[in-house]
């Protein structure tokens, strides 16, 4: 992707349905092998990622946020596999794509950063070489130019003294610096989509804010769409244009970030928002959602949240909840809306 034309300011018609989305997830179902049996980890979900937007994916641990996005990258671990559905990109279905097709897309058009930058970097290889590999894997430039571009990418990721850092090993850097290195590595080829899987969870709060700013800068400057996975709505609020709320392998609600925070429709989303600590409630007990996310082995109700939902009725245990369009790109799956 070139820089010209791709630069878009945040907030302009990103959720418009007129343009074809960058990525379309259609009825994606992901299975998991466990002790000889197959369970469902992600249950037929649909969503779009538009060019240049920052899309948040929120939900408790184990609800399928990471798995869905690893599937987009073709990086599912051995026990997980795509059971059905499509991942449409440029008219091509990546769900069934072969290894070489994925290899060409990964690092060049799609990229990913992870929760643990330390283990995500090879401990025995210098930073400069690891960052440069993304370029050489896609023959982006002659070998003689790689070093210069690596230094530039590290500088772009707000790392001071990039030449020195290029010559260091991962263990010599701080957590925040490592995540910046990961970002430099993931964006050096100017991908169209960057998947950030809880990139700030392992970092200090101050460093967290810097990394979020960096991601936002990359989004603005290069028009890189970002899927931002987090369990933390407060972090989502700082960076995302639009949010998908996932629960037990299903999407329960989708809306622009402001709508989710001010006017949540689904009971699960309401519970998540209630459990964000605020200054007004300082000292009081933090409300939480009773119960737990069902594990993959447990039997699923037609509405996955029925067991924990305060308004659930008999129908919630008998029929799948319908998709309700609440206007302004706000949709939710619930019988009582």
């Amino acid at each position: 992707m070139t820089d010209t034309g791709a630069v878009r300011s945040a907030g302009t018609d990103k959720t418009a349905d007129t343009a074809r989305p960058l990525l379309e997830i259609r009825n994606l179902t992901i299975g998991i092998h466990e002790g000889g049996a197959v369970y469902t980890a992600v249950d037929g979900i649909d969503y779009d990622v538009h060019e240049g937007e920052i899309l948040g994916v929120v939900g408790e641990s184990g609800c399928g946020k990471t798995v869905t996005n690893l599937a987009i990258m073709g990086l599912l671990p051995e026990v997980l596999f795509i059971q059905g559905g499509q991942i449409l990109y440029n008219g091509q279905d990546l769900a069934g794509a072969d290894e070489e097709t994925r290899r060409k897309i990964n690092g060049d058009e799609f990229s990913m950063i992870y929760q643990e930058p330390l283990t995500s970097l090879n401990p025995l290889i210098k930073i400069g070489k690891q960052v440069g590999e993304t370029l050489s894997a896609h023959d982006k430039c002659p070998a003689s130019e790689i070093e210069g571009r690596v230094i530039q990418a590290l500088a772009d990721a707000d790392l001071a003294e990039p030449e020195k850092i290029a010559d260091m090993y991962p263990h010599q850097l701080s957590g925040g610096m490592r995540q910046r290195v990961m970002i430099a590595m993931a964006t050096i080829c100017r991908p169209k989509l960057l998947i950030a899987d809880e990139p700030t969870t392992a970092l200090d709060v101050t460093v967290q804010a810097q990394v979020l700013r960096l991601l936002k800068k990359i989004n603005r400057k290069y028009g890189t769409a970002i899927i931002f996975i987090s369990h933390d709505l407060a972090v989502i609020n700082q960076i995302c244009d639009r949010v998908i709320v996932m629960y037990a392998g299903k999407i329960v609600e989708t809306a622009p970030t402001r709508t989710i925070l001010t006017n949540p429709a689904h009971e699960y989303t309401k519970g998540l928002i209630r459990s964000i600590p605020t200054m007004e409630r300082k000292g009081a007990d933090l409300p939480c959602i009773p119960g737990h996310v069902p594990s993959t082995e447990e039997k699923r109700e037609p509405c996955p949240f029925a067991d924990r939902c305060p308004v659930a009725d008999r129908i919630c245990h008998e029929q799948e909840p319908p998709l309700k369009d609440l206007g302004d790109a706000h949709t939710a799956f619930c019988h009582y809306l």
Partner: protein
Amino acid sequence: MRYIIKKIIILILTMLLISLFTFFAFHIIPGDPARLILGTEASEEKVALLRSQLGTDLPLSTQYTRWIGGFVRGNFGNSIRYSMPVSDLMKGRIEVTVLLGLMVIVLVLAIGIPMGVFAAGKKNTIIEQIINFFTMLGISFPGFFLSILFIWIFGLILHLFTPGRYVSYENSWPEFWRFMFFPALAIAVPEIAILTKYVRTAVLDELSEDYVRTAHGKGISFYAILYGHVLKNAIVAIIPLIGMMIGSIFSGSIIVEQVFAIPGIGRLLISSVTGRDFPLTQTLVMYVALVIVVTNFIVDILIQVIDPRIRLQGK
């Protein structure tokens, strides 16, 4: 640097301890060298005389300090059986054993590592099963049995070398290597099998690491990840094993030298033990121990060079 000095001190202490163990072990086992030389018919006076000549009538502690004192000055004493300096006996034989050992190490590394990586790359295929079968077979065969097998197959049937006719490297290097290749292979096969298994496991462990996922996410091909990212990490994990293998390679060569009639220190060691030739035995054991301890020392340094994390701790 401090790390290296610390290691050298440990090395010296280890050698000292080994010398103590060897010395006392050989003096505890029954068998009097004077008796063995003179035979059971000899008179007590004659035996006593020989004992005092050999110095075996002195207290053990005096014998030890005398021996170790000479040892560090390069004087290994005289062989009881051959009545000549131990150093003269070892000359020409040590080189043969060292060359044999080196050849084994080269074979083990050159075959074991690529095969292990290859086996890991072929996980869940029939090829993996075949490799597993052969590594199991390789581990199960003792070196001396393989020696006999190789003499029969490569010597008697295929005529690739002449069994029993050792060619000294002083006469012809190519002929020397040609003869030595098969004993080296006989020692190497079980070690190759073990190394293959370990490398395979180490590589598979590394393949499940996060950095491998990152590399896939960057669009690097599987084989580039295997050889460019995983192998280096896997080798750090198996280097200590390679250090330990040196020991078993040397003990393996003792028997195999016998079978192939190679004039190395292996044969000398066996005859010196049966003849209670203490000065010779002790020197040989010390020598083998030194080789093992020094190679492990080198291995420690090598890990430092490869793994920057350990380098940092040493500073």
